């Protein structure tokens, strides 16, 4: 009977199936779970689709007969926040203008490249200078292309990051040779026009954040603006000290991350032996964000000795993990014992630490567990299988935050595991992100977002999840349900 066998869904078949379901609703549904078990919260996704609002206003006239003006650009709606952001964005440009008004702008010296005196240059110097200049040209073109783009600051930031990366690569190719880099610095400072000086400053600022020692060394030889007095010298030092972030202004005005009620303890476990004095800027930002929602407790363990052989290191690793578990559990018990019963305890961890946290949560009761970039696939197979009962034993609610493109955690597999788990669980999927929740550059460009925006959005989701855990959200039975019960 083709009507029933036809693979495609048609209304007739849908109706039949609904009817059969209605007539024969004796059994529990195939995906039934006892009601006492908590909910699997539906997965939330961040940045999975394009952000609303196209880069340029699509508010084209609806009337097609009307003549479309293609010459005058459509003025994008100016956001008051943007002026502040614009200011932050143009800081290096303004600095370049301010400290050295003598440096000519491009309009004044269109042929500056030809004027550069290259007489005494070596081949290596020639090559390096030309390559760097090529990178700067590309940056300049990108800046021009993005001029008055509604999200120009973000696009500018992405371009500068790219330029900085390319410059770093060039310098790495000459092994940061001090002589050559000093020479390059001087050559650039002496010859670049004002717009290019701004690009160079942006690059220096960005790289200073990533390789501070190398840049400090580079600048030590001759600090370019030193001829303009100590005031600018101080200004330059400050400028180099921080990297501008286009989202700063947005965060200044956006609602701050609020503290969670009862000032919960947030225990941050390490995924590897690490030196906390050398946190990446991203880790610092996360620490700051976590500190705003609750009392942050960081578990630290001494680093491994580098001299140890691989075999020793291997045993050290397993010992390290055991120590993380035992130290954390001791810490949790200490907190519980110290009369903070009303303050929830949340475990927080990245990658391997997320897995360690699940282990801890299956041994010791905590109020919740946040797993960022959970490594679901391991060398020994998938976590959450029958022979790995750790995940299934957890009774505390768990929030997974996973990257859409994470190699060690496929969203579908995670959903399967979540179905098997006996605890309440949530999932936040970050579009285009890898296993460490870092969003790819293409994604950033397409969506006009930065990593700090993504991290902030993740933090907001985490906060919401944790807050919901603290406020019981079980709805009281409605009048209709109660009526139904009475009728039974």
């Amino acid at each position, binding site marked *: *009977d083709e*009507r*029933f*066998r036809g693979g495609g869904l048609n209304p007739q078949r849908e109706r*039949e*199936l609904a*009817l*059969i*379901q*209605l*007539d*024969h*609703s*004796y*059994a*529990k*549904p*195939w*995906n*039934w779970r006892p009601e006492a078990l908590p909910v699997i919260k539906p997965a939330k996704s961040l940045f999975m689709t394009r952000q609303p609002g196209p880069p340029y206003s699509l508010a084209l006239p609806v009337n097609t007969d009307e003549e479309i003006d293609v010459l005058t650009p459509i003025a994008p709606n100016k956001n008051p926040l943007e002026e502040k952001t614009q200011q932050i964005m143009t800081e290096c440009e303004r600095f370049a203008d301010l400290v050295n008004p003598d440096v000519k702008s491009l309009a004044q010296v269109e042929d500056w490249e030809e004027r550069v005196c290259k007489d005494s240059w070596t081949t290596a110097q020639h090559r390096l200078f030309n390559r760097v200049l090529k990178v700067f040209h590309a940056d300049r073109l990108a800046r021009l292309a993005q001029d008055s783009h509604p999200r120009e600051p973000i696009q500018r930031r992405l371009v500068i990051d790219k330029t900085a990366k390319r410059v770093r690569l060039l310098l790495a190719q000459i092994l940061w040779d001090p002589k050559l880099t000093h020479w390059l610095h001087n050559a650039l400072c002496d010859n670049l026009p004002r717009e290019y000086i701004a690009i160079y400053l942006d690059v220096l600022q960005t790289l200073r954040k990533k390789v501070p020692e190398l840049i400090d060394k580079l600048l030590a030889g001759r600090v370019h603006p030193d001829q303009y007095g100590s005031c600018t010298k101080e200004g330059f030092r400050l400028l180099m000290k921080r990297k501008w972030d286009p989202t700063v202004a947005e965060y200044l005005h956006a609602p701050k991350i609020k503290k969670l009620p009862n000032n919960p303890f947030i225990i941050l476990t390490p995924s590897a032996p690490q030196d906390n004095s050398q946190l990446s800027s991203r880790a610092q930002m996360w620490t700051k964000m976590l500190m705003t929602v609750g009392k942050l407790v960081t578990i630290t363990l001494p680093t491994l000795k580098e001299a140890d052989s691989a075999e020793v290191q291997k045993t050290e690793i397993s010992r390290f993990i055991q120590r993380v578990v035992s130290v954390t559990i001791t810490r949790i018990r200490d907190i519980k014992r110290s009369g903070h019963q009303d303050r929830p305890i949340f475990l927080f961890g990245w990658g391997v630490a997320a897995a360690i946290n699940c282990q801890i949560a299956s041994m010791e009761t905590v109020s919740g567990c946040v797993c960022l970039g959970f490594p679901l696939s391991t060398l020994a197979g998938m976590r959450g299988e029958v022979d790995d009962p750790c995940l299934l034993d957890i009774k505390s609610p768990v929030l997974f935050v996973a990257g859409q493109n994470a190699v060690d955690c496929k969203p579908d597999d995670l959903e399967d595991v979540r179905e098997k788990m006996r605890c309440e669980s949530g999932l936040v999927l970050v579009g285009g992100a890898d296993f460490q929740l870092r969003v790819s550059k293409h994604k950033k460009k397409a969506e006009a977002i930065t990593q700090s925006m993504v991290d902030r959005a993740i933090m907001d989701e985490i906060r919401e999840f944790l807050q919901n855990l603290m406020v019981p959200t079980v709805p009281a039975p409605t009048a*209709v*349900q109660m*009526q*139904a019960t009475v*009728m*039974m």
Partner: protein
Amino acid sequence: MSVAHYNPTLKWKKVSNASGPSPRPRHGHRAVAIKDLMVVFGGGNEGIVDELHVYNTATNQWFVPPVKGDVPPGCAAYGFVVDGTRILIFGGMVEYGKYSNELYELQASRWEWKRLKPKPPKAGPPPCPRLGHSFTLIGNKVFLFGGLANDSEDPKNNIPRYLNDLYTLELRPNSTIMQWDIPSCYGTCPPPRESHSACAMTDKDGSNPRLIIFGGMSGCRLGDLWVLHIDSMTWSKPILSGPPPLPRSLHSATVVGQRMYIFGGWVPLVMDDVASHEKEWKCTNNLSCLNMETMMWETPSMEVFEDAIPRARAGHCSVAIHNRLWIWSGRDGYRKAWNNQVCCKDLWYLETQTPPAPGRVQLVRASTHYL
């Protein structure tokens, strides 16, 4: 119209204050009668019941017999027959919506379950897993007809197929060795259906055994009646007189004497275009009666009082014990606004024949005794 003289006033009676553990309300369960006992098994309501409950009509008492042996998983919309004290169950839906084709035997004298593995028929495959089929004992053979199969292995995906195959299973006394058989039949076989009713019927003298198939579901509710004459294995579709009942499925059909009583089930709400696009259905508490001697639908006149008739329902069970037709539970439709469908938990019986007037002798004896 000379036969229209039969027009008794029938009376439903609700049985209250039954003692013993009363079973959970449900639908899709089945019942058989052993002497005064009504044996109820299976069914469910968002969770299938696997307990066996027995109601003693003589003492108005529910009890749960202690069962042993290969206790089957609970099932709903399955086949349930009794031969003396030997009960057979076949197929139906088991928990989480899977369809079954397993056969179990319950020896009611010892309350002992046993799983049976009948041999496949010589001429074809054994019956596929199904629900809503009929399973009827006629003579020493059980007749399995129709039902609903699922052509998909995946529980998330249902590919329904309505069946009209006929199998028989011969019961030999004191033997559990059985074999399915696909009998060859003559005449036109009824079209595929499920949740129909099937009754065994003979003439008053016990001759001319027949299997009566009525109604069911095949995408729309059916109201046709088919007869399989067992002696000749011939299907026929007799012409019936009198006002026919509405097409329906998940009703009950019970034979008492020479009459088949059809009660409840889902009926179409709108009768204009039944076949094309039925959209709404409702449960009914309508009682119809087919006189098998005259092949005429009779409308029994009911004593209608408030609460004197069982609520509309479907998927209930019914058995005939002496001249009484017993029904228990079933569900009364579906209310979308509510989370759960509501099942009735009431037990009723219908007095199909006016009890004989108390005899004078009895009175005299009573008074004599009293004196």
